């Protein structure tokens, strides 16, 4: 486990809370979109954009940047929010999510918004692209790291395992995958729809090194990524156990929030919950 300074952890926690608020604000404005996944991945995106990634928000084409490939494009509100908070573009643009003419397409599009790296949405095709980038970069002895975030639901897709086999064969040590293991998908719980377990054993059988973490613990997130960088003979997959809808009690663990946005009334309540950290803080304006 990494030893992050207490101040750093506090900073990341506050940033993640701001990003969660942005997610709610974006979704209520858009009137459609996914809520549970983005909230559940807010801590991990915060850790990456504010601590882990070697990136430059003002130079999205910088050849040496780490590549963060988001395979499950439907959780893009969390990526957009993290990017905006990190300075890729203004926070105001978040409100354009899913609207006509926006750079913030309902599912992310590479040529629409610099920094999203790949177009994604159709599940199962991110890992292969990440592996292709990692393979090409290794041919040229590049030092950057390729990260691929996936959902657990897309572990049901054949293309994911074709890519896992390829990365294992080629020992792509510059590739780190991270699975958002939140146990839900559109139709219900993953283990009811199409059981994924034992997921760790599956990846190990495909010649990956597997780490499992609490996806809401910053020390564990950063620690796993550091460990992944140190492992040189295999690609690494971090199975991040997350709570879908994390941060808002009403949404947490409820698969029905996979693909719907909050309405205005709910959004007001959720934002209040986030701003007061679940009632722990009383606003001075009240």
């Amino acid at each position, binding site marked *: 486990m990494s030893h992050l300074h207490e101040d750093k952890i506090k900073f990341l926690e506050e940033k993640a809370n701001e990003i969660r608020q942005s997610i709610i604000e974006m979704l209520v404005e858009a009137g459609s979109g996914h809520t549970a996944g983005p909230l559940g991945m807010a801590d991990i995106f915060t850790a990456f954009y504010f601590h882990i990634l070697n990136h430059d928000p003002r130079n999205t084409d910088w050849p040496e940047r780490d590549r963060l490939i988001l395979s499950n494009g439907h959780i893009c509100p969390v990526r957009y929010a993290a990017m905006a908070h990190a300075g890729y573009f203004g926070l105001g643009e978040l409100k354009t999510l899913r609207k006509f003419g926006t750079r913030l397409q309902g599912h992310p599009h590479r040529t629409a918004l610099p920094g999203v790296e*790949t177009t994604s949405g159709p599940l199962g*095709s991110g890992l*292969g*692209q990440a592996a*292709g980038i990692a*393979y090409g970069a290794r041919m040229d002895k590049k030092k950057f790291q390729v990260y691929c975030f996936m959902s657990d639901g897309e572990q049901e897709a*054949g293309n994911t395992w*074709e890519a896992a086999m*390829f990365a294992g064969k080629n020992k792509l040590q510059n590739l780190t995958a991270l699975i958002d293991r939140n146990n839900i998908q559109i139709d219900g719980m993953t283990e009811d729809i199409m059981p994924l377990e034992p997921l760790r054993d599956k990846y190990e059988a495909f010649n990956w090194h597997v780490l499992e973490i609490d996806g809401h613990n910053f020390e564990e997130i950063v620690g796993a990524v550091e460990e992944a960088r140190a492992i040189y003979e295999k690609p690494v997959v971090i199975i991040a156990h997350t709570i879908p809808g994390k941060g808002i009690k009403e949404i947490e663990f409820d698969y029905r929030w996979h693909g719907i946005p909050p309405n205005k009334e709910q959004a007001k309540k959720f934002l209040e919950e986030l701003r007061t950290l679940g009632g722990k803080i009383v606003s001075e304006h009240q």
Partner: protein
Amino acid sequence: MPVNLKAKLVENILDLKSLEQKPTRDGYGLGLVEAGEKNQNVVALCADLTESTRTEAFAKKFPERFIELGVAEQNLATVAAGLANYGKIPYIASYAMFSPGRNWEQIRTTICYNDLHVIIAGAHAGVSVGPDGATHQAIEDIAIMRPIANMIVIAPSDVNEAEKATLAAADLPGPVYLRFAREKTPVFTTRETLFQVGRAEIFWEADLAVSPPSGGETALDVAIIACGPLVHNAILAAAELEKEGVKVRVINNHTIKPMDEKTIIQAAKDAGAVVTVEEHQVRGGMGSAVAEVLARSCPVPIEFVGVQNRFGESGAPDELIEHFGMGVSHIKEAVKKVIKRK
């Protein structure tokens, strides 16, 4: 002989006995090596069909730039998208039935919508694949590739043209689909034959000085617009029709998208009737693309030579071309039918 001399085709073009025969997939192998020599960023990917897609020569010459994917065509497309995203120029090869047949959505989203420069080589297209039967005979590939935005679609007519198209693809913007055949077919273009992506070439033009217009409204009787190795059958048909006094123009329409609309529309104007010829389903193929152009700009009667809503089957390549109605006699029949409709 009314072969278009400017096209610099072989002299013995009508003599099937003396014509050299080679499969167009060989041209892919040659062009791929040349592209690799020319550009260090060219990489070749294959899905367990290295020898038969002719990726082998590249793999031997540039082993560090050859990537074997195994039987995983979806991953073939996504890994290529990643390599192109990073800055490589990937050529991906399999049988057309599997790529782009099996991995269509990955090609659409991760290659085309991502706007990445990946060259997709579909080998074993058409019923002339022969004994392997319908499972391995791609006759829908043009139809699924041409509607995707950004995609360029090329079906070379012989081995030399295939080589040129493969090399040219490295310098094109965005994604390219190249269609190749398994079986040996006549080599009738030469090194000197002009090949330019997006430019259709007139390969046969009735000599109006020798055989003056028959008094109809148009100088020519028919334009045959063909692609792939069947361009040669179209020329053989034109030669026979010439003897019967039918004045024909044959166009090698190798680039199905973007189509050379100017040449196609001019042919329709000059002939007033069109026959399209392709080794593909007539629904959605090159002929359909021609009809889209002509319906808008110069509506004339069209007959479509190709596979008519059927699956292929096992057999000898020549036998199958005849059985599925794409032989010289079928082209002639279509010509006669379309002239009657003028």
